[in-house]
């Protein structure tokens, strides 16, 4: 670790010793008949601080010292106003709310969940609650695919590569976060292809502007995974078994040490799958060389992964509102069955990732100033082993021995990479008044890499293994933001300015001596979002962002072999515009409609340009995205024919993603063509029905089903004149089109009486349809998972 990183960590940790200025208000809200009232909104009028009561009617509110008017409100109850003064202490309140009998027939929802508040920000955020589907065995991909404008694709079974697009942008344009911190320090431990939902509270999807809190260089949005954070002790254990020898176990919990402000928690998962589903694969006749296609079991696609994290947390002390230490261990081993295409079977290629991670997070209010400091250190080891001389067919039979190269390519690989990663983040929020709030953040990610690949190629003209040359990558992103509320909270404006700085060093000399190249860059981005509320849940919002995506080290420096360096590479840039409308369609907020139009103009997109024999990353095309997404959701507590709760959703997304300014004559035929290999039209429908006390008192039965449709899309660039209309196939003679797909998933969950024991059966791909998220690499057919969950509160 470099001295700079160490200094940075010390500076950030020094915040831990700074003192004080906040108090705590806690209490319980009950009704006239002495019953606790859950979901009551408790807000301090003078600040943005607020919270909600839990199922026992209890609440805890952290607040700077001072004098406040608390507003206590809930559906069907008369709002109460209570004046309090707090000075570095804990104040306990007992509040009784009166029913508003005369208004019960037309209840207006006053309190809003934190998720709902996020959804109603000036910037476009979609929030998916994982809490509601924890009783299922759904994956994060399935959850995300229920969102308009978002498409998740996976190249095969559990643990295979996952591609997420948000409003038409994908790959490096999308950044990922855990509790507002860039995910780089966690690596694949939080990869959405394996991460269980059990320890996730909600998933926030930022479609365009990223707020100051998520300072990162995302070109087209981000996904923030918010973990469960509860004040109550619990233990949540699940075990599931599914098709293709898939087993998952998760354990999450928290325990507060009595008579202290200390709690300890754990979260972990273990996943093991053979992924041995059947797929249609080519088998080469060894005599004739001709291929036939057979349904064969995948034989080398297994995955085993374990993640374990313990944390210790101190809350509500005089010197810290919250101080959390975490220590994590992650180990993933994966077999690789095939490359990008299902052409050749790999029988022995394996990859692995091991990480040890320690992190600390400190939150403290200093008067009105809210401070949030995070620092993490990661030691990560990655391997890619491809040393066999055997060659396999898709039946798993060895068809050749003593081949010189590897299964992946013309050279064997025995790659071992060691990474040291330091992540640090400082976030400050200062609510000047109800009308004005200031924000600032700084994100630092430093990565050092060194490795070996003995059987690999050396830097041309030398005997130097390029991986043995140390490489480093430092990224600093600073952001400033201002929120303005006006016109009696009808108007909200969110402005931010970001600075992106990078310093990179790596082995990249083609025919050089292995001396590292070094480059640095400074860029600025800006965003502004405006929201006008017509009522509490009906609003119009618009945003503009000039976003930057800094090239990755590999894009700058190539591989020192046949991907040349290109130190003149410019960052990708994007002008992102959103215009959206959202409304509750009835006064009871049962039905919600949202409509969002989006426009992106991306400049200098980076592509790998293959040549004979070299390749190089270059800023190539621009792209223009014009899209429309709409979603309709309903949540009905009970309907006349069914006594249970029904919720449903339906959404449609169309995104016209076009290549523009193709530049040379070489690609002029593709001017205005769709950017290939991105779905451009898709829909999703789903429902969830829950009913209680069916077979016994307090039991619960839930059904759900989802349907996803993806229109055919093109693997490669197709001239615009050869595209079909929206409801037509392409008018071209081609086998390189990914066909339309229909995917239906369904499941049923049952909770035993008053216990917290759930049993669940999920059926994925109910129609047993051919699903090809990636060209000719099928995903599993119909498959089943049975899952047991036990929750101790």
């Amino acid at each position: 670790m470099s001295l700079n990183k160490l200094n940075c960590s010390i500076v950030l940790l020094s915040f831990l010793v700074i003192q004080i200025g906040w108090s705590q208000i806690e209490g319980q809200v009950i009704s006239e008949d002495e019953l606790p009232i859950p979901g009551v909104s408790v807000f301090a009028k003078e600040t943005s601080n607020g919270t909600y009561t839990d199922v026992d009617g209890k609440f805890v509110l952290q607040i700077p010292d001072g004098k406040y008017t608390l507003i206590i409100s809930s559906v069907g109850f008369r709002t109460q106003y209570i004046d309090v003064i707090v000075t570095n202490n804990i104040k306990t309140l007992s509040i009784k709310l009166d029913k508003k009998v005369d208004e019960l027939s037309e209840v207006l929802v006053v309190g809003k969940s934190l998720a709902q508040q996020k959804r109603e920000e000036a910037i476009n955020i979609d929030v998916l609650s994982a809490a509601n589907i924890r009783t299922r065995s759904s994956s994060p991909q399935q959850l995300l695919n229920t969102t308009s404008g978002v498409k998740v694709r996976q190249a095969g079974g559990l643990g295979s590569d996952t591609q997420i697009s948000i409003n038409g942008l994908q790959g490096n344009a999308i950044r990922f976060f855990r509790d507002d911190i860039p995910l780089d320090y966690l690596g694949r431990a939080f990869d959405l292809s394996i991460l269980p939902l059990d320890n996730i509270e909600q998933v926030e999807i930022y479609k365009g502007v990223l707020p100051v809190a998520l300072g990162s260089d995302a070109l087209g949005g981000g996904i923030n995974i918010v973990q469960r954070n509860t004040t109550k002790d619990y233990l949540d254990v699940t075990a599931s078994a599914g098709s293709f020898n898939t087993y998952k176990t998760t354990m999450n919990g928290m325990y507060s040490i009595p008579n202290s402000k200390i709690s300890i928690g754990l979260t972990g998962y273990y996943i093991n799958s053979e992924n041995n589903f059947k797929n249609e694969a080519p088998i080469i006749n060894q005599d004739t060389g001709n291929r036939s296609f057979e349904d064969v079991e995948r034989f080398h696609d297994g995955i085993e992964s374990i993640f374990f994290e313990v944390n210790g947390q101190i809350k509500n002390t005089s010197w810290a509102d919250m101080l959390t230490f975490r220590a994590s261990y992650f180990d993933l081993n994966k077999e690789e069955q095939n490359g990008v295409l299902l052409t050749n079977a790999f029988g022995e290629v394996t990859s692995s990732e091991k990480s040890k991670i320690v992190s600390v997070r400190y939150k403290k209010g200093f008067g009105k100033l809210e401070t949030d400091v995070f620092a993490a250190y990661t030691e990560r080891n990655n391997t890619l082993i491809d040393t066999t001389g055997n060659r396999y067919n898709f039946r798993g039979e060895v068809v050749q021995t003593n081949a010189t190269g590897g299964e992946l390519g013309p050279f064997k690989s025995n790659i071992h990479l060691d990474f040291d990663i330091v992540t640090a983040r400082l976030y400050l929020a200062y609510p000047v008044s109800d009308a004005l709030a200031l924000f600032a953040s700084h994100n630092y990610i430093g990565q050092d890499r060194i490795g070996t690949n003995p059987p690999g190629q050396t830097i041309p003209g030398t005997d130097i293994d390029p991986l043995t040359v140390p490489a480093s990558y430092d990224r600093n992103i600073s952001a400033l933001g201002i929120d303005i509320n006006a016109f009696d909270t009808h108007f909200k404006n969110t402005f931010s300015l970001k600075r992106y700085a990078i310093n990179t060093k790596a082995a990249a000399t083609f025919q050089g001596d292995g001396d590292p190249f070094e480059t640095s860059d400074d860029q600025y981005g800006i965003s502004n979002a405006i929201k006008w509320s017509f009522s509490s849940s009906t609003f119009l919002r618009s945003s503009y962002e000039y976003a930057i995506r800094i090239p990755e080290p590999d894009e700058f420096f190539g591989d020192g072999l046949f991907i040349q360096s290109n130190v003149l590479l410019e960052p990708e840039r994007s002008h992102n515009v959103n215009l959206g409308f959202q409304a509750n369609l009835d006064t009871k907020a049962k039905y919600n409609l949202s409509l969002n139009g989006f426009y992106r103009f991306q400049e200098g997109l980076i592509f790998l340009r293959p040549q004979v024999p070299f390749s190089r990353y270059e800023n190539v095309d621009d792209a223009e995205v014009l899209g429309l997404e709409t979603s309709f959701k309903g949540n009905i507590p009970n309907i006349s024919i069914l006594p249970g709760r029904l919720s449903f959703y339906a959404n449609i997304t169309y995104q016209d993603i076009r290549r523009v300014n193709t530049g040379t004559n070489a690609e002029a035929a593709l001017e205005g063509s769709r950017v290939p290999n991105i779905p451009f039209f898709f829909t999703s429908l789903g429902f969830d029905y829950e009913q209680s006390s069916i077979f016994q008192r307090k039991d619960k039965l839930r059904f759900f089903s989802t349907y996803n449709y993806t229109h055919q899309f093109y693997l490669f660039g197709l001239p615009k004149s050869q595209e079909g209309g929206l409801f037509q196939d392409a008018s071209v003679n081609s086998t390189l089109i990914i066909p339309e797909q229909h995917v239906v998933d369904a499941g049923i969950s049952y909770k035993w009486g008053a216990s917290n024991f759930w049993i669940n059966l999920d059926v994925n791909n109910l129609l047993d349809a051919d699903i090809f998220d990636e060209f000719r690499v099928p995903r599993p057919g119909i498959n089943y998972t049975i899952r047991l969950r036990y929750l101790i509160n």
Partner: protein
Amino acid sequence: MKITKPFIYLFLVTALLSCSDDDNTTNDNNGNTPADFAILAELDLSTQSGVIATFDGTPEGILNLTENQTSLQLSNARLGGRIFDGALYRNVNDLAESGLQKYEFDANGNPVDAGFIAITQEGQYGANFWIVNSSKGYYYDQSRGFLKIQIFNPTSMERTGEIDLTPDVSKMADNPTIQVEKSGERMMIVRDGKLFVDVAYLLEDDVFTGSVYDSAFVAVIDVASDSFENLTEYQGAQGVSFPPLNMNNVNTDENGDLYIATMGDMFSGERNAKILRIRNGETSFDQDFELDIEPYIPGDGIKWYVGGGAIRNNILYTYIMDEPYAPDYSNYTDLNKDFYAIDINTKVATLIPEVPKTDFECIATPYFVGNTLYIPYSSPTTSGIYTYDGTEATSLFELNGGVIQGFFGLQ
């Protein structure tokens, strides 16, 4: 609020989508195709994808391939192809999987799949091959052996056997520095009843560098008996040929003399990029002939040579760099290659300025069909084919979008 309407709309849209037609392309080929010529063009430089488009009559003038109704989309349009008996053979299929792909042309002129012989090991340059007649051809599949030449039937598109050159050309037992021996990956041509294939003795499996000897080797096999005849060596040259078919690294002149381009070692100071000769009727290199390319490249620096030349009447037609390669090869695809006619006897090179410079996005090189010289070229503003009759260069056609990578007569 009634909730039924939005649902009805949504399901109607979904139902409409589900009912879209599937266009099935006919595979009927009655042997009476109107396709006279085919153009292979790369449309996307990042993915190398493109099309093979056919034409009734000679394509001329400015062509817009996006308007062509008889085309087939290809994952890899950069590597070339060969025509035999009206069918197009390529070393990758639609999806760029390595193997021998045969396309015939249906009654409308559409290219249609007419057979595929797969190879197990994916290669960067597909499967090298040569077709002798309608019942016999040769190809390279290193998964079956580095020193084995595979035999196939071009009509049935089935592998039929192999020739094992190991006993005749292997030097590994005598020279332990050799790590890899390969034969047929780069060069494969039949002339006068003999099959000529390259033999490489390498430090590692790399087409660009690592030759154990500063020599070029060619093995000669009798086609009738599929038996080994000779291994010939030329010292002071290495790196026989470059795999892509459209680079035309090996040519014959009007006398049947064989001219073989060697590209030299890409990373060593002595690159030895030369053109060598095996005279008609001979099975050994002409030790009295070599055409050294390096003197024609001005300045000091890396003078590597890829892409062969076409030859008639002792004149070699080829593109040559107007500057050396940059140390990082960053000028590899700059517009810096001039078209020359080189007298192979006097070694005098004459610039033909009427033929446009090329930038090597088009990797196809000049070639003769009969006595007509076809010159593919590309630049940031245009790409197409020129013809040259010895005195005058004429533009045959120009692509309005795309990079020419092959032009074939089908009749």
